[in-house]
């Protein structure tokens, strides 16, 4: 007799969480009747949900203590806002603490999220950086298991989050990609990505393809029992020996072997990436040779200007990924590493020529951060890393998504967060646009962030054009909404109300810094490094304790404290 399947995809978030926990052990935290809804939606004429679309449940899996975090894809596309983001980050943070104290707590996240909830924009982006930081810490103790059933899948910053998971269980219906098809179509044109071509979309970013090229671990049928069984296997297996987001050399060499001038399809990637891992690494050496001979045209950008001024190096040796600059120079009494992502008009990947973070950029940033960690492995005092941030966006392109740009970005997130946990003070200096996935990749994992108070310094989750299209509003309506909800605004002053900035420095010439501007900034950087070391804080908890955060992130703080009360 053929067994009938019970759909897991059709279940709502709460039922999914209940299904994954051992029978009778489900206990919800911050449940619907606590009414922790988003305070930002009603002012924009959007009906909130009483749990803000995230279910946090405690219980056991295979008899072991566990937390299941389940995102409701039906509510606002599973978008991450201030409350929902704080629920996820807060639960993971407590799980980290449990494990640190020797209480083993497993974590499963049912991902069904379009990424940042654009109606809350900067709250979402910020929360995602905190979720990512907590996952990196938690993976040291238990496997962080991701279940991606669909129908939404995971997009934007939440795909990068998936790129950090220890193990991913996905169905054919689940999708995993950084930029959604509509966004790429909006940013790069319909010729780049046709968002109406559903078959092409699933063939490119769907669960079957992702698993086939190794970006997900287990492909499952949409069946409740099967998915429960796989989650149990993952819990029993414990921490995997390898994490995708740490495999920098492998992925860099794979990407090096791709010729971006030629069309490439899903089956080509399966063919290329199914070969032995060692073979591809050898091949990469050849490609590197030819790359270095290539003419690299130098384009000045804020990122490059600040990098050159701060390091004092104007003729940097061109590396094999010329869009990522790094240098070790003295700042005050110690050596620091500066890293910047800059435009390269000759970039092999055409979609990453204007300073965007692309496939190679993410992994290369990761490489330069990991280098510092390895070199300082035996040192007591860890070298600070300063991210000079001027990133207009991530690269929007078909090849980027096909080849897993989200995983590349996750590689950099992992590296920055790991370096921070290892004791390297990470400081970000925001000198230009710090947008979306690009900012998550390069800068948002910092202990402390310093921004120039300048109209060219922007923090946001998505370009206005795309945000308007996705939320089905006009740009004028978006501007109107931003007046009511500061986290939706693009300017750095509005952003500073969230209380995450260590310093907002005014009176600096951001375009062409003078000697005294440089001195001011250097002093601020030295101070930020010092404060970081003195505080001893290696996670991102200091972002919630600033004076501005007490009002700017009141909801996030409340969610975390309530979670703690209800945890045990």
């Amino acid at each position: 007799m053929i067994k009938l399947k019970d759909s897991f995809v059709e279940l709502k978030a709460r039922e999914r969480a209940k299904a994954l926990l051992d029978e009778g052990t489900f206990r919800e935290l911050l449940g619907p009747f606590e009414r922790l809804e988003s305070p930002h939606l009603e002012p924009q004429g959007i009906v909130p949900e009483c749990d803000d679309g995230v279910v946090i449940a405690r219980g056991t899996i295979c008899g072991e203590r566990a937390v299941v975090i389940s995102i409701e894809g039906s509510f606002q596309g599973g978008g991450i806002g201030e409350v929902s983001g704080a629920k996820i980050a807060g639960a993971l943070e407590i799980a980290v603490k449990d494990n640190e104290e020797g209480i083993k707590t497993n974590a499963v996240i049912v991902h069904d999220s379009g990424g940042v909830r654009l109606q809350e924009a900067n709250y979402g982006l910020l929360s995602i950086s905190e979720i990512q930081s907590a996952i990196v810490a938690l993976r040291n103790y238990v496997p962080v298991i991701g279940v991606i059933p669909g129908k939404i899948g995971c997009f934007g910053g939440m795909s990068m989050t998936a790129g950090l998971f220890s193990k991913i269980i996905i169905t054919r219906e689940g999708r995993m990609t950084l930029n959604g098809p509509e966004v790429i179509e909006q940013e790069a044109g319909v010729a780049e990505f046709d968002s109406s071509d559903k078959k092409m979309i699933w063939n490119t970013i769907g669960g079957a393809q992702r698993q086939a090229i190794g970006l997900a671990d287990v492909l499952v049928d949409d069946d409740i029992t099967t998915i429960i069984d796989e989650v149990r296997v993952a819990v029993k297996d414990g921490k995997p020996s390898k994490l995708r987001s740490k495999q920098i050399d492998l992925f860099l060499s794979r990407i090096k072997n791709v010729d971006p001038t030629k069309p490439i399809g899903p089956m080509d990637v399966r063919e290329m990436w199914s070969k032995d891992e060692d073979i591809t690494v050898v091949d990469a050496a050849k490609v590197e040779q030819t790359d270095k001979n290539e003419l690299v045209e130098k384009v000045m950008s804020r990122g490059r200007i600040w990098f050159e001024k701060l390091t004092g190096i104007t003729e940097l040796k061109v590396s094999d990924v010329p869009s990522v600059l790094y240098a070790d120079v003295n700042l005050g009494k110690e050596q620091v590493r500066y890293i910047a992502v800059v435009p390269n008009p000759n970039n092999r990947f055409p979609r990453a020529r204007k300073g965007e973070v692309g496939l190679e950029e993410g992994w290369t940033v990761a490489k330069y951060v990991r280098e510092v960690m390895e070199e300082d492995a035996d040192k007591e005092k860890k070298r600070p890393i300063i991210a000079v941030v001027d990133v207009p966006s991530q690269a929007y392109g078909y090849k980027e998504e096909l080849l897993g740009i989200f995983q590349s970005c996750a590689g950099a997130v992992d590296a920055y967060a790991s370096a921070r946990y290892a004791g390297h003070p990470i400081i970000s200096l925001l000198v230009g646009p710090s947008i979306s996935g690009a900012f998550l990749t390069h800068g948002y994992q910092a202990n402390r962030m310093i921004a120039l108070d300048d109209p060219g310094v922007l923090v946001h989750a998505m370009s206005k054009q795309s945000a308007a299209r996705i939320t089905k509003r006009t740009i004028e309506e978006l501007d109107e909404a931003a007046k009511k909800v500061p986290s939706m605004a693009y300017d750095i002053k509005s952003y500073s109300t969230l209380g995450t900035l260590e310093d907002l420095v005014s009176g600096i010439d951001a375009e062409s810094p003078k000697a005294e501007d440089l001195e001011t900034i250097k002093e601020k950087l030295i101070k930020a490094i010092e404060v970081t070391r003195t505080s001893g804080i290696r996670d991102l908890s200091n972002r919630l304790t600033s004076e501005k955060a007490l009002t700017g992130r009141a909801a996030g703080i409340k969610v975390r404290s309530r979670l703690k009360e209800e945890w045990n």
Partner: protein
Amino acid sequence: MERLTFEYAATKSVPKRAYVGVVGSGDLEVLLEPLEDKKAYVTVRTRFDGFEQIWKDILDRFFENNDIAAKIEINDFGATPGMVSMRLLQALEVSQDDKTQR
């Protein structure tokens, strides 16, 4: 978005609270809590303005058949009248059933 409130006289009590639904396209969530007073208070937040009469008709009919003393909150994302009635009945069922807890 519109916020509507309704009030009904009630006689029957409900044993426990119930939560059903989701604020998703064509759907709604219902939070139902028992009340000591012989009253029912309903608050509706709906994405679509101008349907007060329809909400009244649906709720009138519901309380005509089930005069429960309860506080009911509805967050609606464009559910049809049929869907609204179904979710209300579902909430009532959950509130009276020990085993169902959805």
